[in-house]
């Protein structure tokens, strides 16, 4: 028999919520500050207030009605006790789809371009996943290391003419070194303090990038960054004195060639990040990261050095950010401090958290949702950020462990029978 809906309680609760909503909406929605020649003017849109109240009333009412039907959240930590094969199959399928994308009918320039963007965020998400998901270190300034990678390449290619492939390892190394420098004093801080301090470092770096114009070009950034070559063959329409890519392969020139090439580069980088993450989870250091996340005091009692363990996670994660930054710089041809704000850090963190901390496929799903979809609906750009922040809050309220939470064990003693 269906449970009785507590009607009076639902009505009262919703009315209260609507009243509060009206109160909040009165100044903010009811009035608008408009610019005009006489300075600031006030427009009134008081009709919005009861509309907002009505929406909140309806929403809250529905929520109360639906609540008994929702499954209880929370409970003990569950392991993905099902075999580890299913996520693996899904992962392989996704990888295959990604590899084959350019040759499918979907493989036009526009889609490949968007896919490239999503892949950058997937790689950043997988990199941050090592730090936040595996080692449990909440870092809010990840974008700083992304910036270090990007600016390293930009500056080195301008100053010394190094190519993308030469700079890639250097960018990663620079980001990792920066990570070690930042991490060493900071990683022993407790969760939320660590988050704020890393945020502080991210902001400091951004201000420095903005003001140290002689090195970084200041707010104008660095432009004219060299594009990557296909093993030395530039991918442009023509290049005097050099054989171009399309010349070598006897193909007509098409800008899609470079787009496709860039797509495969980031796909390779991302898959590399993924493979290393998966492998390292099964190594002692990976287990130590997860153990540290569970209980640092127990780890100390087992002789595990928390500082070096955390630093290794940090260095690896920031190295991947460096790689991604290098790629970003070469893809855009131009970088400026504008691309490296705290908001970017928040997006990457949201991807990791929404996807499910520690889940590789979750990161892909979240990146597609948070970056891919809004790209497809460019007109709704304004609402994107509100929806994004709202999604973060909602996921925490509804599924704090993320969409695809659940931990697969790294090793088993009693081999399972066929799955």
């Amino acid at each position, binding site marked *: 028999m269906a449970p009785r809906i507590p009607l009076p309680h639902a009505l009262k609760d919703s009315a209260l919520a609507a009243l509060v909503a009206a109160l909040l909406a009165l100044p903010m929605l009811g009035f608008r500050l408009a610019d005009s020649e006489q300075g600031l003017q006030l427009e009134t849109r008081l009709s919005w207030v009861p509309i907002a109240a009505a929406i909140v009333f309806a929403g809250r009412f529905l929520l109360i009605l639906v609540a008994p039907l929702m499954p209880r959240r929370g409970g*003990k*930590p*569950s*392991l993905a*006790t099902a075999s580890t094969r299913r996520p693996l199959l899904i992962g392989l399928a996704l990888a295959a789809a990604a590899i084959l994308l350019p040759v499918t009918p979907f493989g036009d320039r526009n889609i490949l371009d968007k896919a490239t963007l999503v892949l950058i965020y997937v790689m950043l998400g997988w990199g941050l996943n090592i730090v936040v998901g595996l080692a449990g270190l909440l870092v809010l300034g990840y974008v700083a290391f992304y910036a270090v990678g990007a600016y390293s390449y930009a500056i080195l290619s301008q100053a010394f003419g190094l190519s993308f492939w030469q700079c890639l390892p250097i960018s990663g190394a620079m980001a990792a070194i920066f990570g070690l420098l930042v991490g060493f004093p900071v990683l022993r801080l407790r969760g939320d303090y660590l988050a704020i301090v890393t945020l502080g470092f991210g902001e400091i770096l951004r201000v420095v990038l903005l003001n140290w114009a002689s090195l970084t070009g200041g707010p104008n950034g660095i432009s004219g960054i060299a594009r990557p070559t296909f093993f030395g063959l530039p991918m442009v329409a023509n290049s005097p004195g050099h054989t171009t890519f399309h010349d070598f392969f006897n193909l007509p020139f098409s800008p899609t060639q470079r787009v496709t090439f860039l797509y495969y580069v980031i796909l390779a980088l991302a898959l590399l990040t993924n493979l*290393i993450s998966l*492998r*390292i989870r*099964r*190594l*002692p*250091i990976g*287990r*130590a990261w*997860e*153990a540290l996340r*569970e*209980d640092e*005091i*127990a*780890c*100390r*009692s*087992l*002789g*595990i*050095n*928390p500082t070096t363990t955390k630093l290794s996670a940090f260095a690896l994660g920031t190295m991947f950010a460096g790689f991604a930054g290098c790629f970003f710089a070469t893809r855009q041809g131009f970088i400026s401090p504008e691309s490296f704000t705290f908001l970017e850090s928040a997006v990457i963190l949201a991807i990791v958290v929404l996807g499910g901390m520690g889940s590789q496929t979750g990161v892909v799903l979240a990146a597609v949702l948070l970056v891919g979809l809004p790209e497809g609906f460019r007109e709704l750009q304004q609402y994107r950020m509100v929806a994004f922040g709202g999604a973060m809050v909602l996921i925490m309220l509804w599924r704090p462990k993320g969409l695809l939470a659940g*931990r697969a*064990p*790294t*090793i*088993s*003693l*009693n081999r399972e029978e066929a799955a």
Partner: protein
Amino acid sequence: MSVLLNVENLTMRFGGLVAIDDLSMTARQGEITAIIGPNGAGKTTFFNCLTGFYKPTQGRITLTPPGGDEWPLQSMQGFRIAKKARVARTFQNIRLFAGMTVLENLLVAQHNKLMAASVFSLAGLLGLKSYSRAETEAVEKARQWLVRIGLEKSADIPAGSLPYGAQRRLEIARAMCTDPVLLCLDEPAAGLNPKESLELNDLLLDIRKNNGIGLLLIEHDMSVVMRISDHVVVLDYGARIADGTPEQVRHDPAVIRAYLGADEDEPLPPAVARDLGEA
């Protein structure tokens, strides 16, 4: 049996509060030494000083494994005490890695050995034989311990979903997987029913016999303390008030007074005094 742990004039002060007051005691290798005393006597504080979670205000704690160097535990960093001096401990509130499997818990305990074998993970990443061999050995060692504590079938379930008694045993096995010379157990019998307590006794006696290490035990459960300890030290208000064999300590009036909460010059209740043979 040689002296394994030598505590000299240990004092621990938190601001104005004296938690441990000029404590001196020894524990021998191959023996089970119990630390008992009323609540608040400073027993866990003592363990925390021993294992590097607190830095003692004064005094010395020296660990001397047989045939090895001396370790000044009072000035060593927490994880180094476990790693270099090989002192392992369990906690009053069980601290397992609840989200990881039983087997993984035991593998994490062998971290340092495995890390060395994987050469900063490089050998591991490249899939070199030397590392896979080390990992197989580690898994085998874990398996032997699981058999010893009866959890072999539960190797792949999350440690947090084990029943309470099993979690306690697992924590002990995990500590033993670090190959310690001194095992410190903080109230291992807490929350166990009489049958489980007997099993715990067997396990600890077995460890003493087969692994030849020293055991240090904080316990309230007298059925465990009296049955298996070779040596008992009694603390009250941070100071040592008795030190001897279980028999000696059981009949010590000072000890009884401490547990009853009576002052030194108060006469004991008649029934107790009769029991002890006092007037």
